[in-house]
């Protein structure tokens, strides 16, 4: 995130808003509800950025996001309730473990193209649900794991809303950083080339399977990271937190925001979290409304609110010095 003054200014402004202004607003309003909402937005940002790398940039239509979110959440829940581990340990186990598992799984799955990859990920999501539901010794099955203690770092319990909000903000920052580095770089070019025309990319010397498996692993690791915190702030995890529908929600967010667009992923996360709150009177109709929104977005807004092409051009303008954006200007 270095380069021109515009880029630095933008990053500083974003950090100030999320790190200082919003917490101040929460403090002034004194509403834990609003703070929790902000925290949920930030965690969702992690999820949308992760899925956007996979589905937007690399073009792999995936419906198994909840599997890795669930890996993280169950790792956090089981480790902290059984062994009283601290948060960093849980994060390390969840993120590293998921990255390895997802990479190996990815090597198998990414051989499938287009709709078959999607179908296989649905199978994976269903298998995960079945496993969690039936492996009672580990997951307590349908009852779920209740009474998950608050986040514990270096012996301190972080119980207040500000602490968990800041942790969520930190995770969102990590996700934005990873998303930025992978999207706005030659690595991103390689991923996009593979998405657009895998054969042509291969004949330019790229190794599509390897790169796609890497992105699948990063996607899984980011999801798992968010999952660990999710388990603690929710203080409960159960199989019903990880339904196929939740994957579809994250997908809806990035379709609305703009597939392949990092700012779009952030915007999509904000919209899918805040919109239902504004539509609270519809209550239980949340899922239906999302179905309708996804449907309409596919038909009428296939490139999303902030399309990939425009977002990439915008980032180039903010950071023209990066090698990825560098090119001779017209004299």
């Amino acid at each position, binding site marked *: 995130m*270095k380069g021109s003054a515009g880029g630095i200014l933008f990053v500083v402004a974003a950090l100030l808003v999320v790190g200082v202004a919003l917490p101040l607003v929460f403090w002034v309003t004194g509403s834990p509800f609003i703070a929790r909402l902000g925290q949920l937005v930030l965690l969702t940002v992690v999820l949308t950025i992760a899925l956007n790398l996979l589905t937007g940039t690399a073009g792999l239509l995936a419906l198994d996001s909840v599997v890795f979110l669930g890996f993280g959440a169950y790792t956090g829940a089981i480790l902290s309730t059984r062994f009283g581990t601290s948060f960093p340990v849980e994060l390390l186990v969840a993120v590293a473990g998921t990255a390895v598992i997802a990479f190996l799984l990815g090597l198998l799955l990414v051989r499938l193209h287009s709709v078959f990859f999607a179908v296989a990920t649905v199978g994976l999501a269903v298998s995960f649900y079945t496993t969690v539901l039936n492996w009672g010794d580990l997951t307590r099955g349908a009852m779920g794991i209740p009474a998950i203690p608050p986040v514990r770092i270096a012996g301190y319990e972080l119980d207040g809303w500000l602490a968990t909000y800041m942790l969520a903000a930190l995770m969102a920052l990590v996700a934005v950083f990873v998303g930025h580095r992978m999207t706005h770089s030659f690595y991103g070019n*390689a991923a996009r080339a593979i998405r*657009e025309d895998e*054969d042509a990319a*291969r*004949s330019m010397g790229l190794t599509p399977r390897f790169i796609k498996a890497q992105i699948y692993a990063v996607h899984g690791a980011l999801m798992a990271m968010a999952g660990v915190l999710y388990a603690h702030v929710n203080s409960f995890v159960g199989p019903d937190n990880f339904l196929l529908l939740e994957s579809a929600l994250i997908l809806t967010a990035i379709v609305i925001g703009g597939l392949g667009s990092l700012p779009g992923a952030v915007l999509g996360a904000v919209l899918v979290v805040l919109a239902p709150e504004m539509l609270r009177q519809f209550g239980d109709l949340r899922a239906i409304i999302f179905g309708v929104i996804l449907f309409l977005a596919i038909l009428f807004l296939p490139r999303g609110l902030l399309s990939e092409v425009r977002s990439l051009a915008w980032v180039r303008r903010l950071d023209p010095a990066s*090698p990825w954006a560098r090119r*001779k200007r017209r004299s």
Partner: protein
Amino acid sequence: MTVRGEGTGPAPVLEVEGLTRDFDALRAVDDVSFAVMPSELLGLIGPNGAGKTTLFNMLAGALPPTAGRIRLQGRDITGLAPNRIATLGIARTYQNLRVFPDMTVFDNVSVGAIGRFGVSLWGTLVPGLERRRSDRIADATIAALERLGLIDHADAPAGNLSYGQKKLLEVARALTLAPTLLLLDEPAAGLNPNETEALSLLVRTLADEGLTILLVEHDMPMVMRVCDRIVVLDSGRKIADGAPRAVRSDPAVRAAYLGDPE
């Protein structure tokens, strides 16, 4: 041009030996052998269905041969994956354009350089780690864009280019791989006479600068004009191999093109 006899002069860049490919009962390429010498511009021609595209795809690794050997600078590359062949030094263009339409011209062309220099996930994630490699990719991309006169369009989406410019884009993308052999698959197809003329000049210049090129082409006058040597295929077999003038007057070639039964 020097005379290229067996066993004399420099070693060939590409050697094709007894290359054969069957599709079920059909033998699309039948025992074809030839060699391409350093900085030679070799034309590969033949009537429709002669097996040009099949042969081309085998050279690029897109199709495994049924029998025969392909050697690049003495190294056996038969049946290797396309990405291996690309990094070993064979770059290609496509007959039906295969640009990445949603990416900018710069990003399209960079893909060849990315294939050549590689990308790593760690280098991408850790700031500063990959700076040198990224600079090389950017430099190679800019050089290729300038070489083909596309630098002014660097930030335009590739989908917005004209047909002829997209062809140039594919050549630029292939050049960023710094290939030892450039495979051009019917580059003149779909171009108007002016564009064809410009392209001929470009191909000839590239060869004169020392690049080894195998040109598969339908446009006979263009091939006759620019190529050092021509190999003619008909029904999967090689029926002629020699200088343009000799090939033009070869009775077998005339028969093949006029559709005469032998």
